[in-house]
């Protein structure tokens, strides 16, 4: 009787480890991708259903297909803690990668259940300054698991209700957990006014530890309003 209880406890402990390392990630990643996909579809159908207020100002005709056309980015208001405002696509992380983004970086409210968190007080996508994000590198579907595999110029696409914001990856860095200066308007430049549109993604390092942080910097490339449809970089991804 007692022996059986101990065996049961041991099996439970092993199951927990297996869940934490693998099973929970399969479940979490699948849930997050499904969630991101359904949010994206909901925005698309909402837009299609809306009686086209057609702000779409296309007076300059479409005869000028520039190589990297960008509209002036629409900046959506900052999301409340745990409120989903975007979906992130990173083709380098997989074709089906589409993880929801929400306000705040607390584990129980945003990072565990939703996916990618937005540091409160940092700009929203497309804005001048440093859009700062955090997500798990291991466990809970590990949204930023492959962050160290990013290569120069990899597209990082954020979809919001307003449209698509494309960033291009520049470089990685490893810092101590207290290095909050990576979230400054110009990363790590104290007291400097924002001079560009940056994106900073932070996650844990080394994997399964939290003694350091890994940071991925990207720069803004373009914004595509929802009326114009998904940008070319997303084609072949969805």
């Amino acid at each position, binding site marked *: *009787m007692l022996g*059986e*209880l101990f065996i049961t406890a041991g099996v*439970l402990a092993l*199951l*927990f480890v297996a*869940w*934490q390392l693998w*099973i*929970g990630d399969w*479940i979490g990643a699948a849930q997050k991708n499904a969630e991101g996909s359904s949010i994206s579809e909901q925005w698309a159908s909402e837009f299609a259903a809306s009686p086209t207020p057609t702000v779409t100002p296309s007076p300059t005709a479409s005869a000028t297909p520039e190589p990297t056309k960008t509209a002036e980015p629409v900046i959506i208001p900052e999301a409340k803690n745990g409120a989903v405002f975007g979906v992130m696509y990173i083709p380098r992380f997989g074709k089906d990668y589409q993880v929801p983004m929400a306000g705040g*970086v*607390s*584990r*129980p409210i945003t*990072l*565990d259940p939703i996916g990618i*968190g937005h540091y409160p007080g940092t700009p929203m996508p497309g804005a001048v300054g440093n859009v700062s994000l*955090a*997500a*798990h590198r291991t*466990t809970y579907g590990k949204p930023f698991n492959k962050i160290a595999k990013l290569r120069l110029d990899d597209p990082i696409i954020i979809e919001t209700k307003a449209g698509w914001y494309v960033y291009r990856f520049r470089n990685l860095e490893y810092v101590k*957990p*207290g*290095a*909050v200066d990576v979230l400054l308007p110009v990363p790590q430049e104290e007291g400097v006014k924002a001079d560009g549109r940056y994106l900073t993604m*932070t*996650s*844990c390092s080394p994997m399964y530890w*939290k003694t350091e*942080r890994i940071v991925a910097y990207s720069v803004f490339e373009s914004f595509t309003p929802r009326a114009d449809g998904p940008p070319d970089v997303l084609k072949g991804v969805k």
Partner: protein
Amino acid sequence: MYAALWRILPGPWWVRVLILLVVVAAVLYGLFFYAFPWFSAIIDPDSGTVQ
């Protein structure tokens, strides 16, 4: 404990095995989707962010 459970279950052996499989599946579902996420947040509440 498990021997008693086996005796309590009705039907021939393959019915009992079937019932146990269903029970095990239900228990695993409860663990993976509810118990473990809850427990994990308790033992390590602040990883992933800067304090």
